[in-house]
């Protein structure tokens, strides 16, 4: 898929990534089935951009994010970072590489150790990667980090519980920045925060990106936030990328029926606006035994006979745009057969 772009440098290339979680059963504990969390996903992330990854819960977006950092070991495929397949690296090399690749988690309440002060939290990555030879250096860097994320210097001796959700997320961001990474996986960084605070964190992430030339993989289920922050967006459904394009292009010309349904489901804060919502029937099928053919066909309002046979390939639609869609009937405009 995504051809090599001449102008932009590919920072990370994910190729045919697969992650299956085995389900063991029976007295012998043999593998009886598996959860296909990520199946055959490929995409590129260019330097300095934000790739948004959207999808509903259980679609594999967080697993994918973690596989890229090898926090979860993928079953097969390649993750090429600056020309090297990091899945083949030994653990010690991988550890060094983690300096360049960091992650921010969803829940700022669960991802900070309650017994560590802010100084300990921010100092730990500096110690591990030996980035602060002297005590004074360490202090200086920690102060600088707090300054970057907009927290007061006095915070160093305080504990996570003394901070609000938004401030804790700032601490998590500072921790990720401590090792001066190039690439950060933001796994639902604003989902647990209140609306007014969400906007603060989104702005902070954008400021840091332009200041420190960061590259983000931004995982979220809030489609509005994803469009706001992303350069390009990939939509996932049941472990597969079903549509992939520049953010503006995807949101203004969605072609996959699932993307259309997702976009139409966004509540719009205007009571006078009543739109033709595509209400999908049923739930997301189990990733243990996904349906044959296109995974979306049981809920798809325009599914035809051939959709039940084989999963459609992710191919270019809308010539002139880098826009790919995995649907035999991908096209713009309203769904022909809308379900009431």
């Amino acid at each position, binding site marked *: 898929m995504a051809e090599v772009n001449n102008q932009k440098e590919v920072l990370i290339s994910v190729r045919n990534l697969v992650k299956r979680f085995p389900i063991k059963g029976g007295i012998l504990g043999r593998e009886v089935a598996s959860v296909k969390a990520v199946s055959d996903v490929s995409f590129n992330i260019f330097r300095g951009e934000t790739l948004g990854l959207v999808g509903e819960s259980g679609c594999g977006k967080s697993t994918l994010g973690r596989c890229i950092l090898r926090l979860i070991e993928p079953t097969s495929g390649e993750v090429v970072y600056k020309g090297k397949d990091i899945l083949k690296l030994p653990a010690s090399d991988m550890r060094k590489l983690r300096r360049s690749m960091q992650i921010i988690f969803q829940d700022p309440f669960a991802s900070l150790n309650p017994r560590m002060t802010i100084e300990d939290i921010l100092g730990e990555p500096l110690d591990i990667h030996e980035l602060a030879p002297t005590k004074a250096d360490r202090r200086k860097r920690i102060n600088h980090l707090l300054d970057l994320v907009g927290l007061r210097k006095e915070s160093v001796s305080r504990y996570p519980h003394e901070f609000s*959700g938004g401030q804790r997320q700032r601490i998590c961001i500072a921790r990720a920045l401590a090792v001066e990474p190039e690439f950060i996986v933001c796994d639902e960084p604003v989902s647990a925060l209140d609306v007014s605070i969400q*906007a603060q964190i989104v702005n902070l992430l954008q400021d840091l990106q332009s200041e420190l030339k960061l590259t983000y993989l931004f995982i979220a289920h809030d489609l509005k936030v994803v469009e706001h922050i992303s350069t390009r967006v990939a939509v996932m459904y049941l472990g597969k990328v079903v549509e992939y394009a520049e953010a503006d292009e995807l*949101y203004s010309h969605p072609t996959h029926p699932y993307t259309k349904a997702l976009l139409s489901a966004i*509540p719009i804060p205007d009571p*006078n606006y009543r*739109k033709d919502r595509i209400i999908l029937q049923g*739930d997301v099928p189990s990733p243990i035994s996904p349906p044959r053919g296109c995974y979306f066909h049981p809920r798809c309002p325009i599914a035809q006979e051939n959709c039940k046979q084989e999963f459609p390939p992710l191919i270019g639609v809308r010539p002139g745009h880098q826009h790919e869609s995995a649907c035999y009937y991908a096209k713009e405009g309203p769904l022909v057969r809308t379900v009431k």
Partner: protein
Amino acid sequence: MEKILEVQNLQTSFFTESGEVRAVDGISFDLYKGKTVGIVGESGCGKSVTSLSIMRLIPSPPGKIVGGKILYAGKNLLDLSIGQMRKIRGNEISMIFQEPMTSLNPVFTIGNQLMEAILLHQDLSKSGARDKAVEMLKLVGIPSPEKRIQDYPHQLSGGMRQRVMIAMALSCNPQILVADEPTTALDVTIQAQILELLRELQEKVGMAIMLITHDLGVVAETAHEVVVMYAGKVVERATAEEIFKNPKHPYTQGLLNSIPVLSKDPTGKIKKTRLEPIPGIVPNLFDLPKGCRFQERCKYVEDRCRGVEPELRELVPGHWVRCVKAEAGDSAMAVTVSRG
């Protein structure tokens, strides 16, 4: 319009070791037959405590309703005995909670749990209650309800569980449905299904809905009237149309401005390159500022905002605002929500 419930100057406090927390500090609003009131606010503003107070479900101690009246059918709910309240709760007034996963009992089948409320409040035999339970499951759109009734909660998906919760809440044809963040734990496509379902059922049954949410999009789509809460007080109250078209309180304006706008926003708003968050954080209820509770985060703050707390004033008929600076007419303070 027929008034069903009147909340007058409700005050609910929690008595903790560090002192009294006034979680709900004198709020008033009305519910009308067949209409929806949306209660909006961020975490800790007292919106859930309001709903629990109406249901008389405030854990006591430490909580206590210290003042006000809740008038339903000529009676003050706060004067009723536990036995009398039990007859109303789940029967005439029922509630759906945010977490469908934790509010169903995992060791009983959903049929068993549905029938419990029906047998308690209605004069039906066991088989009659069973038929009623099946009928309710059918009403909320659960496929093959005769079989599903024997399922345990873990066998259902999140959306299905929320449907079961709604079926349970509606099984005794309540006059009032209190929905506390009914879709927050669900994905957008499922959220769209559930909101649609609530709207349909409201039309069919004619109940009044009190919808508690932090999502302004959800409010815009479902509520007829909106109550905006901040730190335990109502800061603005008006029809949904008025609130979104002509927000008067700086907090309401701030909330609306913090949400990203879609590039192809169907209502013609212009996409923002940068979000406008509300600075700062919600004040500590133990240590509220003197005067307006929003002063520390407000960009229009003046000397007169400090000292005396502003009254809730009726600017134009039906539009109440707690801000000394708000004036009638279009945007006295620069409303920065841009409209095309």
